[in-house]
């Protein structure tokens, strides 16, 4: 078939799936998958998981707090103190089924309120810029046969950049030439240290994604945007010899300096739909997958002058997946009284984002303390969280 010919021409056959015959063989392998969803722009954690039981919340941000659980358009209760934003109905259903948990008052090992600096630090997994992202370093620790990482999008984020080659996948956008053309293209770029590796990855991933996505879609046509990407990502991850690590990101609607209530309602609804689509796409592989949803920092405890919130510190993170010890809100709630806030303005961090990530990676891939120290350098102080997966 064309695809195999193309792969052979490029010398990429080993990087491309060998079709359905591999199903039975590959099923014997570990099969664990780990997905990171990044929300760029700083999600207001206290709006996504609202501590409605805290006496200070309505005083700080009255108009931003939805009605209590049980009331019309009210919060979705998470056990009497916290409530999930009403737009997160699918995530709440996963929580109710024991497949999702939230961690309150999370922050990375940095206190920058710059989006771009904080995102870089979050993706490096450190309090400084590094030349690789922590998920790429995880890839380096997986057995060679499972060392497959995929960025959903045309360009990998810093989180996935580094020494281990990483695939990219994005929906087809242009008509495509024949294999002979690509073969000459690669010959022309053979000595180019910048363009050659990128083109190789792009072409091998195309073969890969064509194989996986080739069967006609069943069910209702997927809608555009993040939910469609998430469903495709789920389908790619579900393939027996598909990627073990993946990153998905969105920068739309989190930086809510003004009119937060309506804007966040839309953004959270899109995220909720996307996470639902990711689960649908994963199908059977849901039970072997853990998904971490994270953002670079939280937002101010109090509402600002324009019905929004400014850059803050601690926020919320979500963990989803079939093996997750869900149905809980983890993390210590620091309180919202003035003396309890960080620098008298932000939610005080009580959980290091690295502790959460380390706990998930330890449970998912059996990485020990020494391996986790390679993923997150100088993180001995951020001990891996326990009890994140069902025994």
């Amino acid at each position, binding site marked *: 078939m064309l695809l195999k010919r193309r792969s052979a021409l490029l010398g990429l056959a080993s990087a491309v799936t060998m079709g359905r015959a591999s199903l039975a063989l590959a099923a014997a392998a570990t099969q664990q998958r780990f997905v990171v969803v990044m929300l760029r722009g700083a999600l207001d954690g206290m709006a996504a998981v609202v501590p409605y039981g805290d006496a200070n919340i309505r005083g700080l941000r009255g108009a931003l707090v939805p009605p209590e659980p049980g009331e019309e358009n009210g919060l979705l209760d998470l056990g009497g103190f916290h409530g999930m934003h009403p737009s997160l109905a699918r995530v709440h259903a996963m929580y109710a089924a024991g497949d999702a948990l939230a961690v309150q008052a999370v922050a990375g090992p940095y206190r920058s309120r710059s989006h771009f600096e904080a995102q870089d630090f979050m993706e490096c997994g450190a309090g400084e810029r590094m030349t690789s992202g922590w998920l790429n370093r995880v890839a380096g620790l997986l057995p060679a046969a499972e060392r497959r990482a995929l960025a959903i999008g045309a*360009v990998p984020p810093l989180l996935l950049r580094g020494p281990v080659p990483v695939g990219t996948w994005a929906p087809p956008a242009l008509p495509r030439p024949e294999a002979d053309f690509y073969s000459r293209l690669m*010959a022309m770029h053979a000595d180019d240290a910048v363009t050659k590796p990128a083109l190789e990855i792009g072409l091998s991933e195309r073969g890969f994604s064509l194989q996986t996505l080739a069967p006609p879609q069943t069910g209702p046509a997927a809608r555009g945007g993040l939910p469609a990407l998430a469903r495709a990502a789920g389908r790619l991850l579900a393939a027996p010899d598909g990627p073990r690590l993946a990153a998905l990101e969105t920068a739309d609607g989190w930086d809510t300096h003004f009119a937060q209530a309506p804007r966040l309602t839309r953004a959270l609804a899109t995220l909720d739909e996307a996470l639902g689509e990711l689960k649908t796409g994963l199908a059977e592989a849901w039970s072997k997958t853990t998904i971490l949803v994270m953002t670079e920092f939280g937002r101010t405890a109090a509402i600002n002058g324009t019905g929004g919130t400014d850059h803050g510190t601690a926020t919320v993170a979500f963990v989803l997946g079939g093996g997750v010890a869900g149905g809980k809100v983890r993390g210590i709630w620091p309180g919202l009284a003035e003396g309890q806030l960080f620098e008298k303005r932000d939610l005080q961090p009580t959980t290091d984002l690295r502790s959460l990530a380390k706990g998930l990676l330890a449970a998912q891939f059996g990485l020990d303390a020494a391996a986790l120290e390679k993923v997150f350098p100088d993180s001995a102080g951020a001990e891996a969280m326990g009890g994140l997966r069902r025994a």
Partner: protein
Amino acid sequence: MDTRTAHALNRFGLGRRGIEPLPGDPVAWLAEQLDGQDPRIATAEPAAPSAFAAIAKEDAANRVPEGIRPDFIGTRYRADLAAAMAQTLSTDRPFRERLVRFWTNHFTVSARAGGRVLAILGAYVQEAIRPHVTGSFQDMLMAVMRHPGMLFYLENDGSIGPRSVVGLRDKKGLNENLARECLELHTLGVSAGYSQADVTSFARVLTGWGVDYSKSAFVFRPTWHEPGEKTVLGQSFPEGEAGGVAALKFLAGHPATLSHIATRLVTHFTSDTPNPRDVATIAGVLRDTHGDLRAASMAVTRLESAWQPMTKLRDPIDYAIAVFRALDITLADGGQVENLPGVLGEPFWNPPLPNGWGDSAPEWTGGEAMVRRADFAWQLAGRPAAPPAMVLAGRALGDLLSPRTRSQVTEASTPRDALALLLASPEFMRR
């Protein structure tokens, strides 16, 4: 075409357009392009009033509960975008246009914000950026910070001093967005050592800087302005509009700002990893000329490192523009000329966040994005009347063409593949 001429056309310009005449002396050619005022300024009408007219029409249409709603803002935006794209494709001053794009990215206002930002974007580039690319950095900074485009995009038009008349009456407060990004992205840079207190204090300085819709212009609202003197980076600034003007003048001349913008200029024109000596040279020119951007741009053209060919990967917009210009394609040719950079990963005027698009190869070398360049080249190479590949190689690359590319192009199985390979070659992907 010798290497030096070909390099000047690609590195400082936007790629040669069709068979346009070649410059005799490349450096003199670059200098001439920066002489005098931009011809687009001399002939253009003020753009902001018609942008505000579009906003007003759309607001009025939205008040009608039913019926067809004309898309006034979208229409306006698409016309501005098409005009900007037409300008980059047809210009005979490509160095100046490159600088317009560079500074527009430095002071990002993104279409992604939608609504009124979409309406004003074209006017913002025309009025706040374009007139100043060969003027002073301070004037550009001032024009940007007072333009409705930036005041809308980073939301300063809603920031109210908590102890101002309106702040006390309505219990409203600050929005720190513009103040923070101005320090971090536009002037000092994130590592300059300012604090959260400086950001908040600078936001107070800028309270009252807003937009008067009836005049389509900047307005200072004293009743929104936080009273009293404020301190930013140890400097005190007086109450009132003058405090903001003084703070911006202070920031425009700050050594950290000069070093920050010198780094960005040298990165854009020499290497993803700029030589610190080159940065110091350009920062020195900025310091000695009080921020003269024409002088700084010309000093960049005199850096030895700026004449080292093939060190910069074209970003997707640059790449698309260079291909269009080489094939002499204009908007009149239809298709998706305005949209194609987006397919390659960099939609025009539409960066995701206020820090704009990145300016180094790792930002653009995702596998799928790079393969799409080849698909894009192949698509355009299929147009009727496309020139033979080796003719185009002589026109656009001259002595920059490598033997390896020449051999693959000449051995390709069809004329279309040959032309597409040339356009997707390592040389063509660089500037």
